[in-house]
């Protein structure tokens, strides 16, 4: 990857907020704004692959209307996938079927995609603030 880890791009406080929002909304966008092309591509495809595999396995996508504590945690994890969550929630692709083990695995795949994206967005924020190379 053609990255220069010894020179942070910027440490402007406002950049961290933009990077956080962008990194959550579109996986890898935070790193893209910081010109970390390699990481941006890897994180986008990683989160996307997990989300699409989760949908292909017919996993459940939680909604904000849930009242159960575990459903709310599932919703927060799913929401972490940003644009993939909204695409999955408002498209007809992958009708959930958790009566089989595969559907249950799919639910975990999508939640993992969300949590991984949050982790990547946090890393982008740390880079923007100059706390990580």
């Amino acid at each position, binding site marked *: 990857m053609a990255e220069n880890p010894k020179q942070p791009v910027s440490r402007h406080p406002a950049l961290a907020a933009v990077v956080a929002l962008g990194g959550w909304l579109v996986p890898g966008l935070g790193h893209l704004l910081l010109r970390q092309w390699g990481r941006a591509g890897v994180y986008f495809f*990683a989160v996307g*692959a997990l989300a699409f*595999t989760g949908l292909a396995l017919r996993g459940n996508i939680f909604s904000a209307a849930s009242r159960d504590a575990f459903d709310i945690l599932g919703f927060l994890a799913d929401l972490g996938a940003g644009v993939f969550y909204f695409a999955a929630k408002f498209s007809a692709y992958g009708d959930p079927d958790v009566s089989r083990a*595969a559907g249950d*695995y799919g639910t975990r*795949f999508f939640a*993992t995609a969300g949590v991984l994206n949050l*982790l*990547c967005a946090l*890393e982008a924020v740390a880079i923007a603030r100059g706390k990580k190379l």
Partner: protein
Amino acid sequence: MKPNHLQALLVFALVISVAFAFLTKHKPGERLRYALWAFAAFLLVAVVLGWLMYPLSR
């Protein structure tokens, strides 16, 4: 296309290994070594746990 359990395992192991390699390592060589090690560890643990639980499924 709906992946089977083995394909899902391979996708998960590969994706998480590569993503964690990029999150935790900076040099390309270190990333490659970490990704290969984590990928192999994922597969090994999954196969071992699968065989350990196999008697319970019968």
